[in-house]
């Protein structure tokens, strides 16, 4: 591979290809299970395999574009897409993506040296945003899952009420979501979603909770609308990164191989795991990914000359980071797969109707089939 190319594109050996497919599968399972992206696992996973951060983000956003195209159609058939809301969000989300691509490209272009040395600035920036956002999301999910009244209490209304008080005109009515919002509340959320989608590929982690907690949109509509939005954001991000020469289509296609199977299995998992465990396991996986990224940060700092550290530590730290990431992702996916497998076998085997016939008040016949 020419030297200039190796700055962005890594050589893909058979083990690397298999690892990327596994990343896609685990990311897909988590994505189907959590309902909002699997990029938080796939992006750092690819970085751990030696892919420069910016290429990992670019390839992943391209993967998201294709996946959203398939998923949004299904949500749309179910009436879970608020296209009007998506279009308003999109207006600023595209700006957010442009901003993210510009910052990432700038940091990457400004890097000195080759390979990991050149991408260290962009990698550090992506890791910092990743750690900040996902720590917040993970802790919130943990707190939510540990609430004793989960299921009847509902999401906190504090932010919703606060946003509801903002009546700055123009107010826009969104009939499918059944909410009326100030345009000045909608636009910043679009900007933040686009910026994070462009920076770390996990716009859904902001878009979906924002729609639920700030706008008061039903969860199913929030997920469907985010996926619909992801088509445009993904397309815009992918084309922008492609124009900048940063998309590795080979990685995108390898991710597809795993993720499109995984996403079905993850979605099946939602039906067989209780809500509390869904949130707990999701939070644990996210925090595992955050810890993994934190371990990799000293390496980037050393490359930038901001930390004095023996270069011999690079390989062990990167190894630990990779191990932690795979452990949390594969651990989470195993938990989901275990539950899916158990339920799948149970559904094939058990008959489940208890028939109790009581013609005269007292039970006369009780039968448990199978």
């Amino acid at each position, binding site marked *: 591979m020419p030297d200039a190319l190796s700055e962005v594109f890594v050589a893909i050996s058979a083990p690397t290809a298999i690892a990327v497919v596994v990343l896609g599968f685990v990311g897909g399972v988590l994505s189907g299970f959590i309902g909002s992206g699997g990029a938080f696992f796939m992006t750092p996973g690819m970085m751990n395999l030696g892919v420069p951060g910016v290429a990992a983000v670019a390839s992943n956003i391209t993967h998201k574009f294709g996946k959203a195209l398939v998923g949004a159609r299904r949500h749309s058939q179910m009436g879970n897409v608020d296209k009007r809301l998506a279009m308003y969000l999109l207006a600023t989300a595209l700006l957010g993506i442009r901003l993210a691509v510009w910052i990432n490209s700038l940091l990457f272009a400004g890097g000195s040296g080759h390979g990991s040395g050149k991408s260290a600035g962009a990698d550090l920036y992506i890791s910092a945003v990743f750690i900040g956002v996902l720590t917040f999301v993970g802790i919130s999910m943990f707190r939510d899952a540990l609430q004793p009244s989960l299921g009847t209490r509902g999401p906190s209304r504090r932010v919703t009420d606060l946003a509801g008080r903002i009546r700055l005109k123009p107010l826009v009515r969104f009939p499918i979501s059944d909410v009326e919002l100030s345009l000045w509340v909608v636009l910043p959320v679009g900007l933040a979603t686009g910026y994070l989608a462009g920076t770390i590929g996990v716009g859904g982690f902001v878009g979906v909770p924002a729609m639920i*907690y700030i706008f008061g949109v*039903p969860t199913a509509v929030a997920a469907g609308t985010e996926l619909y939005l992801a088509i445009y954001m993904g397309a815009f991000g992918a084309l922008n990164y492609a124009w900048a020469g940063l998309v590795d289509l080979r990685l995108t296609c390898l991710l597809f191989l795993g993720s499109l*199977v995984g996403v079905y299995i993850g979605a099946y998992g939602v039906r067989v795991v209780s809500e509390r465990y869904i949130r707990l396991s999701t939070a644990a996986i996210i925090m595992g990914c955050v810890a993994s990224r934190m371990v990799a940060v000293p390496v980037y700092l050393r490359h930038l000359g901001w930390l004095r550290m023996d270069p011999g530590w690079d390989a062990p730290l990167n190894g630990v980071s990779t191990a932690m990431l795979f452990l949390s992702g594969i651990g989470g996916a195993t938990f989901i797969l275990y539950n899916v497998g158990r339920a799948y076998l149970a559904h094939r085997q058990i008959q*489940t109707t208890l028939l109790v016939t009581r013609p005269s008040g007292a*039970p006369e016949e009780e039968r448990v089939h199978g």
Partner: protein
Amino acid sequence: MPIVVVSCVPFGGGERMARLLAEKLDYSFLGREDVVARANECGIPVGKLEVAMVRKPSVQERMATLKDRYLSVATATICEKAARGSLVYYGRAGHLLLPGVSHVVRVRVIPEAEQRVEDAMTRTKLPREKAERFLHEIDADVRSWVRFVHNVDMDDPRKYDFMVNLEKVSIENAATALCGIAELPDFRPTPASLRIMDDRLLQSQARIRLALDERTATASLTVHSSDRVVTITYMPRQARVAPEIPKILEDLPGCRAVRCTMANTNILWVQEEFRPDSDALLHVTEQARRWGAAVELLRYRPERALANAVLGEEAARPASRPRADTGGIEDDVVEVTSPADQGFHAVLETLSRDGRLGGGQTVTGTKEALAAAISRQVPYSLVVVGETFVKKPAAARTRLTRELSNFLGEEMGLPVIGVSDLRAKLRFGPTQVVHLAAAATVVGLIYYLLFTHQEQLLSVLGGSLHQRHPWMSPVLVAVVAPLVAAAYGVVASSLLKLIKLE
């Protein structure tokens, strides 16, 4: 004797009129406050529920269980009171509480605007402007509440039998006029309508009992009653509570049998005639097995509605209408004599044996009556429409069935599919094999090209070709990514369908 249900917004004079009507007719009176008091006794914080409900849909979906319990308390309270004699009920959406019961007179009171503001000013001690704003807000809240609890628009005139406009008529005269209406033969109880009432009561009492028992209080259960047979569906993760359910409902008055079915979700199957040996049963059961769903049968008999439409009788309904035209649900199994009845019950029995039964009922009348009979509290994932309008010629049958499917889709907000489409969806025949082979070929070809021409590919994506022609990379990405996603999506879903994991 009938139940008169008066619905009105707060401060609108509806309660005064309802009390006066009860006095004139010598009926018992029941107000919404009585229902709320009983709900509070059952541990349902109605006040908090209202505050949390009226604005944000995201909170509403989490409160579905509480809402279900509140509706059960309201239904049980009205049914119990009505069982002891005639009744006038006043509430904001009482007209929606007993769907399908033909001896309910549903009255909407439209308030006199000026009088309403004055009443609000007197009772709240607010100045006019604030009182008007208060009424505006309270109206919006009530509308949101009704939409949340019943999923309908409270101003929809089709949901009422009579509207009383207090701008045009006094409360006294309105009550007098309604006395005559309440005595009309159209609203006399029939054996069928009384049986529906019994089932509504039984269903509500079962729901309340399960909600109050600590063994099942936290479980998410769907309760359905038909012909005094109570069917409970529960989620697989709540399997341990299943053996407790029959024990809790053991001495439920009037209950003939209890059936508990484990299900992730529900499929509603609408058809005119059911047969246990039909292919349709096999396909629906197969779909239910894949999804871990319970199947609820809804036998729909549209012939009466069609006859009325043909004769133009919808607009000029006779003063005394026959029992079957009372817009409602009939008994399921009381007279199992015809082959159609036997078929229906044989299918119910088959589903019960397979562990897939989610209940069953029969509806005669218009498609609106059909929609009214479908519970909005049951988490349906799919509506399957089988053969309906069987006495019509083939072309008319196809058109009417399609119209019915569209109507149900709009009304329920759910995917509706025909039995034949379901068959095509499930089947993995030659067409599916061709699709799979074509998609797999496309995917294989793309991957082969990508990984055998990596140098050229990378040159286009970010190398020398990209330097000269930067547009080539976005074009390649825009074509390849969606193409691979779509083609490989077909391959993945087909393979999962083959192993029955969807």
